[in-house]
């Protein structure tokens, strides 16, 4: 049986015309007189070479072409597995093979080899399956998982750092800030590719750190960076559990960052890397403006330095030897003393040219340039004036519509009942 099957398989594997030819030979009574002993060359382009070589000839891109970026992206030809979706015993001609594609005995009946009606959709299904393999598909990530852009690593979470001995990093999460390839020249190997990663890890409750990692492969670089970040944790105080203690200026290299404390519910309005750092630390409300160089590593370093250089309210009060008082608009600007020094200076002890303004003091006398606000481009155009004049007529309509809806449940007035014909006309 097995040998029979093998023979069968070889027949199936051969191109169909050959099988047909062979079967036709069987039926024709051989004329042994003309029987030639020279071998029949059953060889063509498709069975001379193995499949992978054939595929290579189709998909390969020349070296010069690859350098130009050919054979990438949407137009790329891909290798298809032609065996996918095919089964032994099922073919173009729909035959019932007992023992192969069907049981030998069904019920009490011995099945016989027979031809079944053709399945016209079989080929279509196969082609569809093969086409689905060729289509270019980007790696899809859920909106929660995805980082700053598509499926690239920066901005994505890679879990907590690996435990060191018994100590586990519970509650920690790591965000990739940067992943880039560096090329270095080596005497023996020539130009080699290295990956560098910068990540930030934190538990969202004041503990955070950032780290760098370099490796030949991206995942290894990320792992290294993550574990190094886990080793370099720093603790930051969070004011009222949502923001920083005061505005500050910080810089690293040519990067300048102006950071401002904000009220609850303001959110993080800052550079995306700063946002990730804040989330890792647990800061919820803050505004930061990056000026000068936008080198990512410098931004991260500058921000961490700035956070570390913050002074608590008590420290500020002690430095100044004055009460630090907080005024909140929602509390009708009630003066709430947040920190008092051990001894308070009097008015006479304060020199005239001392910085007393809180923001100026915490910014180390650095002044933020406030740019002049220009009108929107359309506000200077004549059509905007025309629009405003026209809109003047309708300025209260929305409010009135709302009031009518509140009062009557629809847009009508006391006159609608008085003049019902108007109602019907407007409806029609």
């Amino acid at each position, binding site marked *: 049986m097995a040998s029979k099957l093998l023979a069968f398989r070889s027949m199936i594997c051969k191109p169909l015309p050959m099988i047909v030819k062979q079967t036709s030979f069987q039926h024709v009574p051989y004329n042994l007189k003309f029987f030639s002993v020279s071998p029949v060359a059953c060889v063509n382009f498709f069975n001379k070479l193995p499949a992978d070589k054939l595929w290579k000839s189709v998909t390969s891109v020349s070296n010069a072409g690859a350098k130009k970026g050919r054979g990438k992206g949407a137009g790329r030809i891909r290798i298809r597995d032609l065996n996918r979706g095919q089964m032994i015993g099922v073919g173009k001609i729909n035959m019932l093979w007992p023992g192969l594609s069907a049981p030998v005995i069904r019920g009490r009946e011995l099945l016989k080899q027979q031809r079944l009606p053709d399945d016209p959709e079989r080929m279509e299904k196969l082609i569809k399956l093969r086409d689905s393999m060729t289509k270019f598909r980007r790696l899809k990530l859920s909106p929660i998982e995805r980082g700053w852009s598509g499926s690239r690593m920066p901005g994505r979470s890679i879990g907590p750092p690996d435990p060191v001995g018994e100590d586990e990093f519970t509650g920690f999460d790591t965000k990739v800030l940067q992943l880039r390839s560096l090329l270095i020249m080596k005497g023996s190997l020539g130009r080699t590719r290295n990956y560098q990663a910068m990540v930030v890890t934190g538990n969202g409750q004041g503990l955070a750190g950032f780290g760098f990692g370099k490796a030949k492969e991206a995942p290894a670089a990320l792992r290294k960076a993550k574990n190094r970040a886990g080793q370099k944790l720093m603790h930051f105080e969070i004011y009222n559990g949502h923001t920083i203690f005061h505005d500050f200026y910080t810089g690293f290299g040519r990067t300048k960052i102006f950071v401002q404390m904000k009220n609850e519910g303001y959110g993080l309005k800052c550079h995306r890397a700063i946002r990730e750092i804040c989330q890792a630390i647990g800061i919820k409300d803050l505004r930061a403006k990056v000026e000068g160089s936008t080198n990512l590593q410098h931004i991260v370093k500058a921000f961490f330095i700035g956070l570390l250089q913050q002074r608590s309210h008590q420290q500020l009060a002690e430095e100044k030897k004055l009460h630090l008082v907080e005024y909140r608009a929602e509390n009708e600007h009630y003066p709430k003393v947040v920190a008092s020094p051990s001894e308070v200076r009097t008015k006479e002890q304060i020199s005239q040219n001392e910085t007393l303004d809180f923001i100026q003091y915490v910014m180390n006398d650095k002044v933020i340039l406030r740019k002049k606000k220009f009108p929107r481009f359309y506000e200077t155009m004549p059509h905007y*004036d025309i629009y*405003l*004049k026209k*809109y*003047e*007529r309708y300025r209260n309509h929305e409010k009135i519509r709302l009031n009518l809806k509140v009062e009557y449940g629809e847009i009508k*007035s*006391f006159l609608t009942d008085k003049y019902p014909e108007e109602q019907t006309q407007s409806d029609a």
Partner: protein
Amino acid sequence: MPLPPASGTGLYYAKAAKSIRLIRQGCTNRPFFHIAVTHRRRLNSQPVIEQLGSYDPVPNIYNEKLVALNLERIKYWLGKGAHVTTPVAEILGLAGFFPIHPRTYMTAWRNRQAEFERLAKEAEASENAQTSS
């Protein structure tokens, strides 16, 4: 665009004759009037010297016609010798600020007359109907 201020935006010539008049604002089928002082020879569509009040001729849900009058400024302009047009004089008369304008009495009398005639006609018609039946 904010509304022009009530103090008015029109040019003011001290010696030109002024008039206090109704100026129609509002839109199609919905009249609304400003009571304003302007030059006598100036069109109603032109900016006024000063707005002195407003008059809404369409009765509101309580069947009232609302009139607003800045009496202090009206007195000032009257002192300056401003002319008052008949509709404004009628309104001021009804407000008790001026004596009732004769035209108000005329209109009232005519309305009463028309009503009287209508009633008489109706009575006649009903009488006729009774007699014919």
